[in-house]
């Protein structure tokens, strides 16, 4: 019997890859290894609805499908290293496992402030993180958010709805300004402030004070914020440590081609190693041939399906592999956010827009609006606050590559 296909990472990307492999006809052994003890679950609700109600695995678990019923799930297991020549991995209990093909889906971990540990510090990436935070978001709790990106602003809104006193601290000039640009960022801050969220922009956190647990957050300008809870949402780092001894290109995540095949530092494409999810740096020919990592929710699903389909064809060895791998793969980046009454939806890559390429396409910035992001004449992204049905035709424009 041949060695199994091993998928390292048991979140959404790993799950969708496993399903796609079965759909592509691979019926052999399949092992999915994840460091969390939970079966795959949906992360976005952890900073939104779920955080404001009951946080449980049941509330966010992906439904299991019959096609993957015979997958060997090794949960609560971390892979510590891999040997691409010997085709083995080593897990944290020292077990050496062989593989026939390897899928890298280990994702990201939250970056943390470089400050001493103290009770009351939190991050929000995993279900366990959200469970730990949920109990602390009680009415009247003084909550400081480090970071003003999507997760920071979502947690801020959720904590405010739960009756907490909320202050967002960020070195940025506006919240969410890097992904959205100044126009929408200023409006989102206005809406947060209208709901009683305070901002300290252009500031960083210098010190944490307290005895047994956090009591004060000290900013770089000396201001002292009374605080019971600190939530750190200052970005993420790629979980590539276990790949350090390989010759894969790890300059930002793991480099892959549009078939999601891993590429080594000398440019060689591996037929037996695939990269899936927000750890994958790959070119999306919808925009250009520059490989990028994309931390949007749809990417693990789209890249997982793609990797499963290409790897399935390689394993089948029926002459279809070259054709499947050459198929055009241009997933539409898409993301969503709920903050108070704001329902934000985005397609494309707003970060590609020219500095002066951001303008209102429809609606009213103070109410419901559609904002377009242009590179030259070309629409590269669109963001809507409300106006969901009106947003859909712009999605087609982005996909078609027209202005």
């Amino acid at each position, binding site marked *: 019997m041949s060695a199994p296909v091993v998928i390292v990472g048991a979140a959404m990307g790993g799950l969708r890859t496993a399903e796609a492999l079965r759909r592509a006809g691979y019926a052999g052994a399949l092992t999915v290894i994840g460091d969390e003890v939970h079966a795959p679950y949906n992360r*976005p609700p952890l900073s939104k609805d779920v955080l404001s109600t009951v946080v449980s695995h049941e509330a966010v678990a992906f439904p299991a499908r019959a096609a993957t019923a015979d997958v060997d799930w090794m949960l609560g297991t971390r892979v510590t290293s891999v040997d691409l020549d010997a085709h083995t991995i080593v897990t944290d209990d020292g077990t050496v496992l062989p593989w026939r093909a390897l899928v890298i889906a280990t994702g990201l971990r939250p970056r943390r402030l470089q400050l001493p540990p103290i009770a009351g510090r939190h991050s929000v990436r995993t279900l366990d993180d959200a469970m730990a935070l949920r109990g602390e978001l009680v009415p009247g709790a003084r909550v400081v958010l480090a970071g003003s990106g999507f997760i920071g602003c979502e947690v801020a809104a959720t904590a405010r709805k739960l009756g907490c006193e909320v202050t967002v601290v960020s070195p940025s000039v506006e919240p969410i300004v890097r992904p959205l640009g100044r126009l929408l960022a200023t409006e989102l801050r206005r809406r947060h402030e209208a709901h009683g969220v305070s901002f300290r922009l252009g500031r960083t956190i210098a010190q944490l004070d307290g005895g047994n647990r956090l009591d004060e957050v000290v900013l770089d300008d000396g201001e002292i914020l009374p605080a019971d809870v600190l939530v750190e949402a200052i970005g993420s780092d790629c979980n590539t440590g276990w790949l350090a001894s390989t010759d894969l290109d790890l300059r930002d995540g793991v480099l892959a081609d549009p078939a999601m095949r891993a590429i080594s530092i000398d440019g060689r494409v591996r037929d037996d190693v695939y990269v899936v999810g927000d750890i994958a740096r790959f070119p999306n020919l919808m925009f250009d041939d520059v490989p990028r990592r994309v931390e949007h929710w749809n990417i693990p699903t789209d890249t997982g399906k793609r990797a499963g389909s290409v790897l399935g064809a390689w394993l089948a060895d029926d002459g279809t592999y070259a054709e499947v791998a050459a198929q055009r793969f241009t997933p539409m980046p898409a993301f*969503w956010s*709920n903050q108070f009454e704001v329902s934000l939806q985005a397609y494309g890559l707003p970060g590609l827009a020219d500095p002066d390429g951001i303008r209102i396409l429809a609606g009213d910035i103070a109410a419901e609006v559609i904002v377009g992001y242009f590179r030259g004449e070309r629409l590269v992204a669109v963001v809507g606050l409300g106006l*969901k*049905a009106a947003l859909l035709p712009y999605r087609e424009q982005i996909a078609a590559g027209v202005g």
Partner: protein
Amino acid sequence: MIKIQVDMALCQHYGQCVFEAPNVFHLNDDDKLEYLAEADDSERDNVEAAVDVCPMQAIRIVE
């Protein structure tokens, strides 16, 4: 036939499903989701894809 359920308490009307299964899901002019509770077996793959892309994970195929 396949039977489709959308948990309307979860649904945020994002319309991702509309792209995957346009014969089954539709956003009306009020930005609200409308869908067919039953569809032909030929729609199964499209509806499975719609299940995958729903950010709220609100769609189920009832077996």
